[in-house]
């Protein structure tokens, strides 16, 4: 099984075969050659990886991003953020992190944010002198903020798998999510200073007023989407559809920047990019299913328990295992499989399960952009066209930044638990 689930995929991956075929190939080889499980399982589990309502957030938010980018909404928003932050070194990079946090508060899907930021901000970052690899890396890493800031599909799944209160988990994710954004912004400022990237220009009230007026409809978008969620008008997944419709109407009727033909093209591109992402999610789910039936996650958890570690050492171990797992699996399947196994061990050691959920989520969020495997990386690579090795190098500093944030989240439980106690 090591041969079919490890050696074979590594070889196929290095040969440059599409990632979903690499994963599907591993599953095909394991089911047809190794395991006594009937092969129709392959269809059943692959289909199940797609037959999931929460995944609708991906095509919807990708489409919203496409329409914002092509319809001039994103452009006006970026101009506005830049007018406000013109004096901050690295203002464009900071704006990227800010935009990701904003998208994170709208959606629970990291890849959708990466896709839309790649379309809207990548050309600007590159033009500003951040370099192709660093720009794409920044976008891939910023996307991780989105699954920590509520609403979060990952936290919902943790709540279901570990029997924890989802509202408490949402509250617990808020400060760690903001911490991630803050550290990322700080790192971008440092990078910009070192690279000598010029500031975007001084602060002047006339420009701020002009750009604010221009960006009005764009600024209204998060208000409508977030307001709609918190007023109960629609659910977090439906918010993606609302965001798409909103962007479409503004681009078509307010800015008159897109005709129906252009909107149809944007929708086609969004559908194709979503297909490339979701087919990987489904294939990864298939590999996870095989590993689960073979007791691999169970063995890892039993092994960790057998080490009889102190709580702090257990958390180090969990972080290491999860970062490793995050290199291969996507967070949703990893949480479903690992949470029920690890949470009892954590609770027995006196670790708060809500805190543990945030630790797991941050961890797997980081895994989404650690080379070589990670959905954020794949999406950023496809949407920006940056070569893989340049993207890997570009993302590394942000891996370091977010691992620092992870350590803070891990060893300062108050970050996760403070808000829940206050309310």
């Amino acid at each position: 099984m090591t041969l079919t689930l490890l050696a074979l995929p590594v070889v196929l991956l290095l040969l440059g075969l599409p990632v979903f075929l690499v994963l599907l190939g591993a599953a095909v080889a394991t089911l047809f050659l190794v395991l006594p499980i009937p092969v129709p399982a392959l269809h059943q589990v692959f289909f199940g990886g797609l037959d999931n309502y929460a995944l609708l957030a991906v095509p919807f938010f990708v489409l919203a991003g496409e329409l914002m980018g092509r319809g001039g909404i994103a452009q006006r928003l970026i101009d506005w953020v830049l007018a406000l932050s013109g004096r901050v070194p690295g203002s464009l990079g900071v704006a990227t992190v800010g935009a990701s946090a904003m998208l994170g508060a709208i959606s629970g899907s990291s890849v959708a944010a990466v896709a839309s930021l790649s379309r809207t901000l990548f050309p600007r970052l590159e033009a500003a002198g951040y370099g192709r690899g660093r720009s794409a890396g920044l976008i891939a890493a910023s996307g991780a903020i989105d699954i920590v800031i509520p609403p979060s599909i990952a936290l919902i799944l943790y709540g279901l798998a570990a029997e924890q209160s989802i509202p408490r988990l949402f509250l617990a994710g808020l400060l760690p999510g903001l911490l991630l954004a803050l550290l990322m912004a700080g790192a971008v400022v440092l990078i910009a200073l070192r690279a000598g990237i010029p500031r975007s220009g001084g602060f002047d009230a006339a420009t701020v007023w002009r750009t604010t007026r221009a960006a009005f409809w764009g600024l209204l978008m998060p208000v409508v989407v977030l307001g709609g969620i918190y007023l109960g008008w629609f659910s977090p997944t439906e918010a993606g559809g609302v965001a798409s419709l909103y962007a479409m109407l503004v681009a078509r009727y307010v800015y008159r920047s897109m005709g129906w033909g252009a909107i149809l093209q944007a929708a086609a591109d969004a559908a194709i990019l979503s297909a490339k992402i979701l087919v990987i999610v489904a294939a990864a789910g298939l590999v996870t299913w095989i590993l689960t039936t073979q007791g691999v996650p169970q063995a890892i958890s039993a092994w960790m328990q057998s080490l009889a570690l102190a709580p702090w050492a257990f958390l180090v171990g969990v972080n290491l295992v999860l970062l490793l797992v995050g290199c291969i699996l996507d967070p949703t399947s990893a949480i479903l499989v690992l949470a029920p196994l690890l949470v009892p061990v954590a609770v027995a050691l006196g670790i708060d399960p809500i805190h543990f959920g945030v630790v797991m989520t941050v961890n797997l969020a980081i895994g989404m952009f650690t080379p070589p495997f990670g959905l954020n990386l794949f999406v950023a690579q496809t949407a920006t066209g940056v070569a893989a090795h340049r993207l890997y190098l570009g993302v590394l500093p942000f891996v370091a930044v977010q691992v620092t944030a992870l350590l803070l989240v891990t060893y300062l439980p108050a970050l996760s638990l403070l808000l829940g106690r206050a309310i």
Partner: protein
Amino acid sequence: MSLLHRWVRGLLGIVLLAMVLLNVANAAGRYLFAASITGADEILVFAMIFLVILGAVLALALRSHIALELLPSHLKGRSASALFVLHDLATLCIAGFAADASWQFVQRIAAINPRSMALGLPMAIPHAALLAGLAGLAALALFLLVRDLRALLRAGAEAADGGGGA
């Protein structure tokens, strides 16, 4: 862009836009009129599955799937053609076996005939879409294999000619 390519793109775009409208209409109906469109959730998910399958086949035809481009980006000419042939072969094997597994599944499910909860739609229909997708990937891989083998042979012949002339 070939006509077929344009038609498929148009279809993908229309389906996604229709999904957006259905999704918003469903949310509005629930909030404003306390009534949801029967089976809207199921239609949306099945439409998404259809998009993914069709989009995945199209992306394979365009060689635009997400992949680790390290090796392919360094190869040129004959070695690049050889690698493409290798990709096509691997794709044919993987998609072929997957389609076989899928065929076994769909046959069984069609015989038992479970239905979706809200619409009462025979589940064999969305499942058959995945079978069609996997079979489509395999067929496309076979087509690409023939095309890329020809290109490889041509590149080989040209290299031989060039070698003879030098």
